C-alpha cells in the first residue's frame, strides 16, 4: 500500500495550485480519496458526527442498483439468443450482456466525468461523488442497441445543462440521469423507441436477423391497440400476450422477462434494491410509497372507464410495465431534485406516479411518461416545499395567537 501512497505524494506537487499540471488536480484528488481515507476533518464549529458522508450514500445507492443491473445484463443475452431461437446457458447470456453493457457504462462515465472534472478544475473544487450514481443510472435506462456516441452526447448535455449550470452536485433542479434520457428521447427518437432497439438482433458475423421479428416493448405493443377499437382481431392478438400465458404476463413483467431499457425490466429486483435503500435510510420510503399509490390510483381510474385496452389493463400489471418501478425507486427518490419536506415528499411522489401513468396512457407516443412526469415534478418540488413550509408557518402563527 505504501508505494501507492508514494505515487500520490510524488505527483501532488505537479497538480497543486501552481503546479504544471493543475488541470489534473480534481482527477488526482478523486482517485486519491477513493484509494485512501481523506485526511482532512472539520476544524471548527458544531458538526453532526456520522459515518455517512456523500461517498457512502452514493455507494449505498450503487449497491442497491447492482441486482437490477446484473439482471439486465443477463436479460440482454437471453433476449438476443431468444430472438435467434438459439439455446444459451446462463453464462452465455451474462457474457453477451456484459459485452453490450460495459461499453455503455464506460462511455457514460468517461463523458460525464470529463465534464465534471473540467468544471471542478475551473471552479477549484474537488470532483463530487454525485456522478457515480448518475453514470450507472444512465446506461440502465437506455435501450441496448443505442449508438455509443448518442449516450455520450446525452450524458454531456445532462451534466452540463442538468447540473453544472445550476452549480454542480447538490444544486441541480432536475435529475441528471433522467435529463440524459429525456434528451436522447427527443433528440434520437428512432433509437429510443419503436421495436428495433430493445433487443440486439445482430448476429455474431455482423448480419441482421431476418425482417419481421418484432422486438417491441410491452407498452409499445399496447400503444398499437389504441384507436383500433375493442374486439378488433389484431388487438386481441396483442392482448393475448398480456394474459397469464403470454409473453407480457403479470409474472413475467414482475420478474423482468420482457424487453425494455436495460435495467428497468425487473420489478422484483428493483424492489429489492428499494428495500435496501429504505432499510439503510438513504432512499425515502415516503416518496416510493406515495409514488406507487399515485400510479395505482390513476391506473385504477383508467381501469374503471376502460375505453380502450390500454386503459383496461389491470392496474397492478400497468405499474409493473415500463419504467414505473425503476422511476419510483431510483429516480423519484433523488434527494436533491425531490421535495425536501415530509409532507412535500408525499405530495411529490403521489403526483409523479399519478401523472406518469396519465401521460403514458393518454399519449401512447410517449410510453415513457414516467420520465416526463418525474422531470415535471422535479421542477415543481421547490413550489410544493414552499407551500408546505408556508402552511406550517401559518399553523404555528395561529397557535401562538390562540395561546
Amino acid at each position, binding site marked *: 500500500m505504501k508505494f501507492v501512497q508514494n505515487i500520490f505524494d510524488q505527483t501532488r506537487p505537479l497538480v497543486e495550485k501552481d503546479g504544471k499540471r493543475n488541470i489534473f488536480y480534481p482527477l488526482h484528488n478523486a482517485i486519491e480519496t477513493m484509494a485512501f481515507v481523506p485526511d482532512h476533518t472539520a476544524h471548527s464549529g458544531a458538526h453532526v458526527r456520522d459515518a455517512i458522508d456523500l461517498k457512502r450514500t452514493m455507494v449505498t445507492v450503487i449497491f442497491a442498483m447492482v441486482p437490477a443491473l446484473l439482471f439486465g445484463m443477463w436479460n440482454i443475452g437471453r433476449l438476443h439468443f431468444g430472438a435467434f431461437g438459439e439455446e444459451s446457458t446462463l453464462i452465455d447470456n451474462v457474457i453477451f450482456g456484459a459485452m453490450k453493457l460495459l461499453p455503455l457504462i464506460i462511455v457514460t462515465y468517461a463523458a460525464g466525468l470529463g465534464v465534471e472534472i473540467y468544471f471542478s478544475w475551473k471552479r477549484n473544487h474537488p470532483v463530487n461523488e454525485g456522478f457515480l450514481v448518475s453514470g450507472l443510472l444512465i446506461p440502465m435506462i437506455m435501450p441496448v442497441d443505442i*449508438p455509443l*456516441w*448518442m449516450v455520450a*452526447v446525452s450524458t454531456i448535455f445532462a451534466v452540463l*445543462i442538468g447540473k453544472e*449550470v445550476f452549480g454542480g452536485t447538490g444544486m441541480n433542479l432536475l435529475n441528471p440521469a433522467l435529463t440524459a434520457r429525456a*434528451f436522447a428521447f*427527443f*433528440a*434520437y*427518437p*428512432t*433509437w429510443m423507441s419503436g421495436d*428495433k432497439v430493445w433487443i440486439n438482433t445482430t448476429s455474431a458475423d*455482423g448480419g*441482421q436477423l431476418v425482417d419481421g421479428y418484432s422486438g417491441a416493448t410491452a407498452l409499445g405493443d399496447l400503444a398499437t391497440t389504441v384507436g383500433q377499437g375493442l374486439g378488433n382481431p389484431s388487438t386481441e392478438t396483442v392482448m393475448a400476450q398480456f394474459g397469464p400465458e403470454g409473453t407480457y404476463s403479470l409474472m413475467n413483467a414482475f420478474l423482468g422477462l420482457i424487453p425494455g431499457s436495460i435495467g428497468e425490466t425487473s420489478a422484483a429486483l428493483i424492489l429489492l434494491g428499494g428495500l435496501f435503500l429504505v432499510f439503510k435510510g438513504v432512499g425515502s420510503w415516503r416518496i416510493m410509497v406515495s409514488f406507487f399509490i399515485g400510479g395505482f390510483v390513476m391506473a385504477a381510474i383508467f381501469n374503471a372507464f376502460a375505453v380502450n385496452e390500454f386503459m383496461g389493463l389491470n392496474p397492478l400489471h400497468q405499474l409493473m410495465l415500463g419504467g414505473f418501478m425503476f422511476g419510483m425507486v431510483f429516480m423519484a427518490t433523488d434527494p436533491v431534485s425531490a421535495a425536501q419536506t415530509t409532507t412535500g415528499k408525499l405530495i411529490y411522489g403521489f403526483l409523479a406516479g399519478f401523472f406518469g401513468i396519465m401521460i403514458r396512457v393518454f399519449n401512447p407516443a410517449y410510453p415513457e411518461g414516467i420520465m416526463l412526469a418525474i422531470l415535471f415534478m422535479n421542477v415543481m418540488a421547490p413550489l410544493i416545499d414552499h407551500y408546505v413550509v408556508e402552511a406550517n408557518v401559518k399553523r404555528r402563527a395561529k397557535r401562538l395567537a390562540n395561546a
Partner: protein
Amino acid sequence: MSTEVKTKESLFSKKNQQLLKDPFNDNNPITVQVLGICSALAITVKLEPAIVMSLSVMFVLAAGNVIISLIRNLIPNRIRIIVQLVVVASLVILVDQFLKAFAYDVSKQLSVFVGLIITNCIIMGRFEAFALGNGPWKAFLDGIGNSIGYGVILIAVAFVRELLGSGQLLGAQIIPLSWYIDMDKGTGFYANNGFFLFPPMALIVVGMIIWAQRAKNTKLIEEN
C-alpha cells in the same frame, strides 16, 4: 422647446457610434434585456426565415423609430401607446405585403410571426425608451443597432439549430448524406439531433449564448 444652445454634432460622433455598438454586446436586446424571446424561439428552426425576420425587424424598427421621433412632440402623452401601435402596424403590414409579393415561400414559413412583429417587445421598447426622447438621426441609428443585436442572436441560434437539427444550412445539405445511419444497410454513424427542431432547444441555445457572453463580459453579472 429647450433653451440650451445646441452644438452641432457630427453624424458619426463617438456617442452616435455607441448607439450602434451598444446593443451588439453590452445592451443586447435578447441576451441582456431578454426581449423578443418569442420570435427567437419560434422562427429559428431554419436559417432563411431567421434572416428574413431579422431584416423585417430592422426595417420596422429603423423606420418606426424615425417616424416616432419626427412626431414625438405632437403625440399627446396619454395616447402615445396607441399612436406607436398604429405606426408599427402600418409598417408591419407593408413588410407582410412585400414578403407575400416577392418571397412567398418564406412568408408562408414565417406565417403569423410577421404579423406578430407588432408585439415584439423590442420595437415598442425602443419607441418608448429612445425614439420619444431623441432626434430622428439618433433614433435611426438606435433602431439599426438594436435590430442588428437582435438579428445576430437570431441568426446564431438558427445556424446551430439548422446545422444540428437538419444537417443543412440555408436548405443546402452540409453533413454528407453517406454519414447518416441506415438501419437496413447497417452503414453510417451519424444522426440528426431532433431535439434541435423543438422550441425548448432554442431557449437552451439562447441560454448558452448568454452564459458565454457573461463569462466574457463580466460587467453584465449582477451583484446579489
